């Protein structure tokens, strides 16, 4: 009896570590973008099986690529204050186990994705490829521009969701992927300013270290304005009800206002506020897509 309890405790502890490896908040947000993309298609053959398949395949592939990134970046994570308490730097789990877990989880996710639809599987595969191979392995340690590829991979779930719904890549899907692509730099660049010393210590090239804080703030503000514009065009293209457009205009005014204010009178507080606002804006826009189409 005691042995069973101990085994359950060990498994529970393992599961907790696995959960820490997938960055649950980020994974859920990206998963939600995929759901919003799917719902935006007003898919005529929508059924529970497809919807469950979408959720499962996206959850597994997003989690898998995050786990693989944790494995690849373990030498950086140990040098940074922000990440040094993750399971790998602390030695709570072996690197090989993380690699194996990442590969298995990604593989299962991809199998489900290709089983659902070939083109959907291709988009999901590209998401993992851009994130793990292009962004993390190839470019992250070489150039601050790597975040473009991080952004493209972040835009893949919403595109994939829409592709699964309509069976092809269309303008609205690309527009929504673009909005995520523009939103992600606000996330990464804000972090690279807040944790500037961390990134320096780890030797990761960032926009603040290469182009300075002022230019980085300017790019963040421009990206935020770009997010508002691309989502706005997306809403109009989708034929969303006028009420949702009204609310989107209200939220966009706030986003653009804080962006301009952060260029005119830059400060750390404003930057963090802009980052948070852009995240709320993105989430609110996706909720409106889900409710409004």
């Amino acid at each position, binding site marked *: 009896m005691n042995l069973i309890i101990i085994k359950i405790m060990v498994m529970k502890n393992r599961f907790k570590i696995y959960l820490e490896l997938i960055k649950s908040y980020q994974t859920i947000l990206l998963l939600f973008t995929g759901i919003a993309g799917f719902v935006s298609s007003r898919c005529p053959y929508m059924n529970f099986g497809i919807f469950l398949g979408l959720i499962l395949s996206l959850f597994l592939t997003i989690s898998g690529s995050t786990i693989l990134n944790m494995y690849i970046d373990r030498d950086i994570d140990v040098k940074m204050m922000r990440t040094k308490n993750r399971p790998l730097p602390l030695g709570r789990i072996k690197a090989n186990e993380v690699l194996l877990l990442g590969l298995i989880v990604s593989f299962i996710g991809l199998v489900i994705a290709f089983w659902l639809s070939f083109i959907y599987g291709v988009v999901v595969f590209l998401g993992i490829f851009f994130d793990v191979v292009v962004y993390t392995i190839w470019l992250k340690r070489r150039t601050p521009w790597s975040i473009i590829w991080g952004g493209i991979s972040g835009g893949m779930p919403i595109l994939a969701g829409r592709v699964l719904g309509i069976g092809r890549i269309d303008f609205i899907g690309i527009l929504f992927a673009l909005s995520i692509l523009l939103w992600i730099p606000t996330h990464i660049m804000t972090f690279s300013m807040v944790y500037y010393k961390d990134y320096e210590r780890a030797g990761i090239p960032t926009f603040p270290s290469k182009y300075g804080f002022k230019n980085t703030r300017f790019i963040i503000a421009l990206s935020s304005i770009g997010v508002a514009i691309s989502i706005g065009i997306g809403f109009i293209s989708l034929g969303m*009800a*006028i*009420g*949702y457009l*009204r*609310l989107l*205009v*209200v*939220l966009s*005014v*706030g986003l653009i206002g804080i962006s301009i204010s952060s260029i005119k009178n830059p400060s750390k*507080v404003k930057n963090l*506020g802009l980052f*948070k*606002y852009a995240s*709320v804006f993105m989430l*609110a826009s996706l909720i*409106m897509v889900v409710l*409004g189409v």
Partner: protein
Amino acid sequence: MKKMNFINKIFLLFTILVSSYFIVNGFDDISVIPVILYTIGLGVLVLASLLLLLFGIEVLENKLVVIVSTLIPFSISLGLIFQYVNVMFLYYLIFVVMGYLSIIYSRYLGSRVASILAIAFFHGIAGLIIFLLPIYFFIKTSSLHFIFISIGAFFIGIGGILLLFVKFGKSYIPSRIVFPLLPLILLIVSIFFGLGLSK
């Protein structure tokens, strides 16, 4: 950043949800101009609550707060005049534009006294319109939604006066009492304005 307690965060969150709901679903049966004006009024409530949540209570110290918050009585009173006293709309529009420019000018370039006078006069009249005009129409028509608008106006008036005391340094009611009350006031205002304006 001064910490805001949990219950006030919930009030602000509900203010955002309630105002957003009425912006999305509220006024589809009325003409375009009041819809735009009411959207501005409720939109300011959404943005004010969002900014308070994300930046904390310090956001109230910004010079823009008075200018932006003035949009609430101006836009809603303009919408009401357009809907119910249409013959006066153009004159009142001129009054609002003049008032808004005066408030902006006095806030940035004028003296402190000029700023207080501009707000008290223009903001005050707009506030009285959204409080008294619906009462008049309620007496005439017995339609309950007018009273909701007046209740919203009453509460936002109280909030505005309390804030004015704090902003201009009057110590009758200290900021530590006023600031925690604001989220609840915003929620009450959003509910009554939403119910009243959307019929």
